[in-house]
């Protein structure tokens, strides 16, 4: 199936979970990433169980603390 991750369309295995996608995408500091699916935030405790569907739009939002 195809999903969109960070604006890019990707082919992923059917029923991939958010946790699996985080691993596959090699997300840095995975324990602190915020994830939205179709413009709704998913709670961290649901990452392992939440399966994505064909056409889902996923965004990873990262802490970025620099500025000085």
């Amino acid at each position, binding site marked *: 199936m195809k999903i969109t991750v*960070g*604006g890019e369309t990707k082919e992923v295995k059917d029923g991939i979970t958010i946790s699996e996608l985080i691993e596959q995408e090699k997300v840095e*500091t995975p*324990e*602190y990433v*915020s994830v*939205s699916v179709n*413009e*709704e*935030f998913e709670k961290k405790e649901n990452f392992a169980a939440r399966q994505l569907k064909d056409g889902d739009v996923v*965004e990873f*939002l*990262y*802490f*970025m*603390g*620099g*500025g*000085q």
Partner: protein
Amino acid sequence: MPFTNDQLERYSRHIILKEIGVKGQKKLMNGSVLIIGAGGLGAPAALYLAAAGVGKIGIVDADVVDLSNLQRQVIHTTADVGRPKVESAAEKMKAINPDIEVKTYQEFLASDNIMDVIKDYDFVLDGTDNFPAKFLINDACVMADKPFSHAGILRFKGQLMTVIPHESPCYRCVFKEMPPKNAIPSCKEAGVVGAMAGVIGSLQALEAVKFLTGAGELLTGKLLTFDALTMSFHTVKLPPRGDGCAVCSDHPTITKLVDYEQVACDFDPKHPV
């Protein structure tokens, strides 16, 4: 008050824009912006907002200029090393535009003084380098209903969002709680390309100009991310402000400011916090 001939000439490129014009330039000159952090993000923002003729600009920073700042903090020069950053910044801003008022705050903002400082400004620009400050600024601005621009930079990446409290989602709507100390790499540990601060700080200055003049649409309800390695901008649409936020929902659980214990950009014996 009508413009002087010098002002008409100085601001002619603004005045000719239909989105700004004479009216918008007047709004800039009657407007005020507080820049928290006279560093990577604050430097370009302070220079552009001074040049734009923003009537009153406050600049907050407790530190002195360090040699390692000069790779990106373009408001400071080699001769400024050792001087208070706010003094160095104010001098350049006044040199660019003597018409503006620059107010300096050589102090750290904390729960006991931030409300008093932000109250005198129309718009706040977060140019800080640590999460305790970013969460404090978010919570204070939400409680004071003060519009602000949040931004962060790291390595070759940067991101920003504009918050109109109680209308658009706030920083805490996206990033619920402060990450533990040392969980997220800092610029000092991981590096940052100097021009990234220029890009993101300039985008923050643009948001301040748009807010004051009413031009265009603000970056609210969205997080704009920029990756310099792929040269790509990406806008992430944020969920609407909901009931879940601890500070900006209609039934907040955070109603008092707290000072989080985390040293800015980790412990640096030269800059104890």
